[in-house]
């Protein structure tokens, strides 16, 4: 059987980029077809990314908080962990609820979902392959939102015990000894989940710090706090061989902190990055350029080199984050509908939902140095935060980065519990071009963790009273 559909807009891929573009276009009055190879909408983020990882991290957090409370007078016994029940909750109540929600909203908006694998056959047509037959979609405009896939390392054998993030999220079991290969956000998030559930987790990272994109001073606080969590954190080290034997995975390391000989693990999580799917949609048939790595280059309007074909999300470049995809999606849909719009944010936030969280937005200190910016950094250590003290979590800090001359905020980073929830204010401040004084004079509620943003601004302004004030007037006498 073969179907033919004509539409104003076809969207290839139903991740956060794809469904947001489809919905926005539909809401702007356009006819929209959404092509997705999986029956469940929502892409990586909803099915095997952002959402299930946060559900498991929530479980981990409650286990850790309960354990910590013993020091302050409330002692819980060892919890009984029912993996099957956790999985069901994650799959049905969390992921299922959200993907069904997206499906329901597609119907409501009369977005036609075509299931199957889509490939361009010309600059006006996409062929969608499906077991039940193919569908040819003829379009006026297309939005490519095909996302990204896990990077595999060639020298690592295929083995059930070697998993990627998707495998880790399946939570088949809690291994005894586990190696996380890659100390970026995804590796650390999954390492957190498995260690809280009882696995002995080691992390190996090629760079000389975890979460290399974040500032060293911020990450250092995370790393120090998490010494007890991990069996070992091997920085400046890489895995060079994995020998899969019956009794375990034998790993050979190389580098600064490489252990001697082979080390045995029960499970290995490979979390070394993601690669764009640009090469997998036959973009050449439509004349759309895809670079070597698989990225599709776009303008600020999200147009590819073919003006009526747009691309958004992970496939157009870093940072590969859901919220970037959504905002790009809105731009693409609005431009197609005839609105003037551009993707032109001053900043895009990043969060590692670890414990403590590491969160940053705007310029980092190391980026500022690379770019030769004249900045001033203001820190508020959470050891002086009433709320952090009352939560027995004083390891955190709030760091703001200001343009020295204008006093304008350029970025900020927070490490600490709930850090990610506080980025909204810093992001808004950067977008609005707020001064240190604008932030410092905004009354923040006491006692909160977010007041540390106001207090860091006061450190910059020299009006801080909750810390010694380095900018105090020197008294004469």
């Amino acid at each position: 059987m073969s179907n033919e559909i004509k539409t104003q807009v076809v969207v290839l891929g139903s991740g956060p980029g794809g469904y947001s573009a489809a919905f926005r276009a539909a809401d702007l009055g356009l006819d929209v077809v959404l092509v997705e190879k999986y029956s469940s909408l929502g892409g990586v983020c909803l099915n095997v990314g952002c959402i299930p990882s946060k559900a498991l991290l929530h479980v981990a957090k409650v286990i850790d908080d309960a354990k910590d409370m013993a020091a302050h007078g409330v002692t819980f016994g060892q919890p009984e962990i029912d993996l099957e029940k956790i999985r069901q909750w994650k799959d049905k109540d969390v992921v299922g609820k959200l993907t069904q929600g997206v499906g329901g909203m597609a119907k409501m908006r009369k977005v036609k979902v075509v299931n199957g694998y889509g490939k361009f056959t010309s600059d006006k047509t996409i062929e969608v392959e499906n077991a039940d037959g193919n569908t040819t979609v003829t379009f006026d405009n297309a939005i490519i939102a095909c996302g990204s896939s896990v990077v595999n390392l060639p020298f690592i054998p295929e083995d059930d015990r070697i998993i990627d993030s998707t495998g880790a999220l399946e939570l088949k079991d809690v291994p005894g000894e586990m190696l996380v290969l890659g100390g970026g956000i995804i590796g650390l998030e999954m390492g957190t989940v498995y260690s809280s559930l009882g696995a002995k987790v080691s992390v190996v990272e090629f760079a000389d710090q975890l979460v290399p994109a974040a500032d060293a001073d911020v990450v250092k606080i995370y790393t120090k706090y998490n010494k007890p969590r991990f069996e070992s954190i091997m920085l400046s080290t890489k895995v060079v061989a994995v020998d899969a034997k019956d009794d375990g995975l034998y790993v050979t390391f190389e580098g600064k902190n490489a252990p001697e000989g082979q080390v045995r693990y029960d499970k290995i999580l490979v979390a070394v990055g993601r690669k764009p799917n640009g090469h997998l949609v036959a973009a050449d048939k439509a004349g759309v350029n895809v670079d070597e790595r698989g990225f599709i280059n776009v303008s600020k309007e999200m147009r590819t080199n073919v003006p009526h074909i747009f691309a958004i999300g992970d496939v157009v470049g870093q940072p590969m984050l859901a919220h970037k995809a959504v905002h790009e999606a809105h731009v693409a849909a609005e431009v197609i509908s005839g609105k003037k719009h551009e993707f032109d944010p001053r900043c895009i936030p990043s969060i590692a939902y670890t414990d403590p969280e590491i969160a940053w937005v705007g310029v980092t200190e190391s980026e500022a140095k690379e770019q030769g910016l004249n900045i001033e950094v203001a820190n508020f250590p959470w050891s002086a935060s009433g709320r952090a003290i009352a939560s027995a979590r004083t390891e955190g800090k709030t760091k703001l980065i200001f343009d020295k001359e204008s006093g304008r905020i350029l970025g900020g980073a927070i490490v600490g519990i709930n850090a990610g929830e506080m980025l909204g204010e810093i992001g808004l401040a950067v977008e609005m071009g707020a001064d240190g004084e604008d932030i410092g004079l905004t009354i923040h509620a006491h006692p909160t963790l977010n007041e540390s943003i106001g207090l860091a601004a006061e450190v910059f302004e020299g009006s801080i009273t909750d810390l010694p004030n380095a900018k105090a007037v020197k008294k004469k006498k």
Partner: protein
Amino acid sequence: ENKVVAKTVNGKVLASPAVRRVARELNVNIHEVPGSGKKGRVYKEDVISFNNNKGQVATSVI
């Protein structure tokens, strides 16, 4: 990502996202708009009045 960062730093224009968007909608180059606010902050009204006077000042933008 670098493009985004460079914009933050080099862009001398002090204008919020909504103001930047109005400028785009009106085809106004926001770098040419004099800001009436503190430290030269550009408000929506600045962009709109710049646009209204544009007919006499400049004929083609972009």
